[in-house]
């Protein structure tokens, strides 16, 4: 039987547009030190260091090696994970694999990005096939706009609902000291923002942030010794799809276009194998990788949290608010904070804080026993994790 894995330490940097006061390594080091302090460990207690981000944003090749002195990896095992937006959660999952395989007792996983050092959208555009699609691809926006527009078409969701999601996120983020965009916006403010690509306006899409997040993971035996409040990783699933150029229809479930296939599969499998039949009751919080306002609603449906066409109704009823019956992204989510390499890692960290009851002002009002965490990224890939307060 595989080792069980628990989160025993959490550390984030603040998130902001620019950090001219630190270089990449110093940024990472802040998160690592915060996580070690939270776990009450020293770097010598860690045996494996896994880091993850997307190479192009800062332009470094083999940046895990380059920054080994800042991550604390010198003399330790470890490697670097690299995918797209999923890299933050994938790095976390690889830390889980390190421990659950028995090859590591205490690992630290680090997600980070310093978006102030490179042109984010130009870099994302290089994801497209160079021969066919690249000349008419612009970053990640098109996919999000397609999902959003089609979601409106299919379910009757209106711009107002997306604005409600963003207003709620701003309320949450204003309570989270580590969030990037912490200004509060009303529904009207959001609706009046500048249109970027219909139906997405400037406030309905995620920002580019600078930040890092580190999480200390330990095996069952170690975790019980290290932490009074270990958060257990009950299950995780990775569903990465095929990429087939700009043929977006391939990445969605065709008859139900534009539902996101990878999220549907991840949600279905994970809920099923953990015998979760009433997700709204059995899960108390969902930290979702929500890069634009509409997907927070459509993906609730795709993950199987609610029925088709019910996502926006949940928002309308206030169910997804921090003090609602099913809080979604009480940290403010990716909508308010997005340093891509750590966006996924932060989701895990924030969900774990909710389970520990350590989320401070943005702690949800429900008593959290189980939390769902999702990661998302190019090309429409999904990671999904189930965290739990107890082992059973």
């Amino acid at each position, binding site marked *: 039987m595989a080792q069980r894995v628990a989160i025993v330490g959490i550390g984030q940097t603040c998130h902001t547009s620019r950090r001219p006061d630190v270089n990449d390594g110093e940024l990472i080091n802040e998160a690592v030190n915060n996580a070690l302090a939270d776990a009450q460990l020293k770097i010598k207690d860690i045996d494996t260091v896994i880091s993850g981000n997307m190479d192009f944003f800062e332009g470094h090749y083999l940046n*895990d090696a*380059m920054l080994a002195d800042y991550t604390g990896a010198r003399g330790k095992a470890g*490697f*670097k*994970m690299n*995918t797209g937006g999923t890299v933050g959660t994938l790095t976390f999952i690889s830390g889980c*694999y390190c421990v*659950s395989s028995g090859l590591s007792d205490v690992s630290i996983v680090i997600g980070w990005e310093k978006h102030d050092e490179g042109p984010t959208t130009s870099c994302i555009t290089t*994801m497209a096939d160079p021969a066919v699609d690249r000349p008419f691809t612009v970053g990640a926006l098109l996919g999000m706009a397609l999902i959003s527009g089609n979601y409106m078409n299919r379910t009757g969701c209106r711009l107002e609902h997306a604005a409600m999601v963003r207003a709620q996120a701003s309320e949450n983020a204003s309570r989270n000291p580590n969030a990037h965009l912490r200004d509060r916006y009303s529904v009207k403010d959001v609706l009046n923002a500048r249109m970027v690509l219909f139906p997405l306006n400037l406030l309905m899409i995620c920002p580019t942030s600078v930040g890092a997040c580190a999480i200390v993971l330990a095996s069952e035996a170690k975790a019980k010794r290290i932490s009074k409040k270990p958060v257990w990783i009950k299950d995780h699933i990775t569903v990465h799809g095929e*990429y087939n150029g700009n043929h977006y229809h391939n990445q969605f479930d065709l008859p139900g276009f534009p539902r996101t296939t990878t999220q549907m599969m991840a949600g279905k499998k994970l809920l099923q194998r953990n015998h979760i039949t009433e997700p709204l009751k059995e899960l108390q919080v969902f930290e979702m990788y929500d890069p634009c306002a509409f997907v927070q609603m459509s993906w609730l449906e795709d993950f199987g949290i609610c029925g088709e066409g019910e996502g926006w109704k949940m928002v309308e009823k206030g169910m997804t608010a921090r003090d609602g019956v099913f809080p979604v992204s009480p940290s403010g989510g990716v909508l308010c904070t997005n340093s891509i390499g750590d966006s996924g890692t932060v989701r895990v960290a924030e969900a774990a804080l909710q389970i520990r009851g350590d989320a401070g002002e943005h702690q949800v009002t429900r008593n959290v026993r189980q939390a769902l965490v999702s990661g998302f990224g190019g090309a429409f890939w999904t990671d999904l994790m189930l965290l739990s307060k107890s082992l059973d």
Partner: protein
Amino acid sequence: MTQRVGIVAVAQTKYEAAKGQHLMDLVLEVTDKIAEETGISVVNDVDSVVSCSQDHWDGRTISSVAIPDFTGAHLKDESKVAGDGAYAVLYGMMHILSGHHNLVLVVSHCSESQTDSRIIENCAIDHIYQRMLGLDFLSCAAMQANLYMQKYGILREQCARVVVKNKSNACNNPYAQEPLLLTIEEVLNSKMMAYPITMLDAKPVSDGACAILLASEDKAKKLTDKPVWINGAGNCYDAHSLGDRDLCACESLVSASKRAYRMAGITNPRKEVDLIEMSETFSYQELLWTEGLGICKPGEGGKLIDSGATLVEGNIPVNPSGGLLAGVPVTVAGMSRVAEASLQLRGEAGKHQIPDAEIAVAHGTAGVCGQMHCVLVLEKGDR
């Protein structure tokens, strides 16, 4: 370890200087070979896919987006490890040891010919103090070679002997890019790139791909009657800045190999290991890495090559396939070492077969002057 991880099948493309093929074609070639050899469907039977490639070499962010159609990773547990292919094998192994998956495909590809290594390698150097000096892996390696040769009295001839050995070994390896019968003088007299490294002392520019099918113990036994077990694995980082490291000691390799040997129950690698497939980007590195792997004492890599022990007919053959010097692209490098070591243990290495090979070491490295190393100990199945 609760269970063992087996290598069921390996596949490589022929490595060539400029294949002129799309990366997807390279990957399809090796995954097709795996499917053909094992009779499995990579689409239906494989649980998870781990790849190793580099955004910088592919000129594409999320370089693994190009290949899921060809690895059968559609809607699967797919992930990409950066760095070196040996780490992808290690990560695939974790997937199985953790009990999550039973059949894992690991794949690596790179087309070095499509870009300029010096620009990319310069991006791996610390960007605050050193990058603007124009350092790349060759110039740094030259410094390491000089230090190493000066400290231990290693001769250029001894490094050249590595080239002669490996390129001649490559003559028996159908996948090798540069099979050549050379003399020491020819190596010494080839074009100087960065003293003491000549053109022939360095790995040539290369294109290719490699795939390995890993399985849990039960599954491996069902799929093949010649499984190869991964009995030990270790990896380690060193500091980044060259000035912070003892470049003649390769401490991270020493740690990585010790961890791998301990896990595999090997106490005397010199006696117990039958062959080594290692990642030597430059000829001096083979001498230095044999020291780091505990095959000889520090500073004795030169003597070891002189003794002939590392020749195919010696008692600890190193790179019977020809190694990286015969031409293997980066990122594919470490994975191809695992593949070659597996072929040896299965008795399928053809003309470069080492007789009665039972335990092999495969080694991968990444970073400037071998900053990070990954060591895997493989063992023949029916032993």
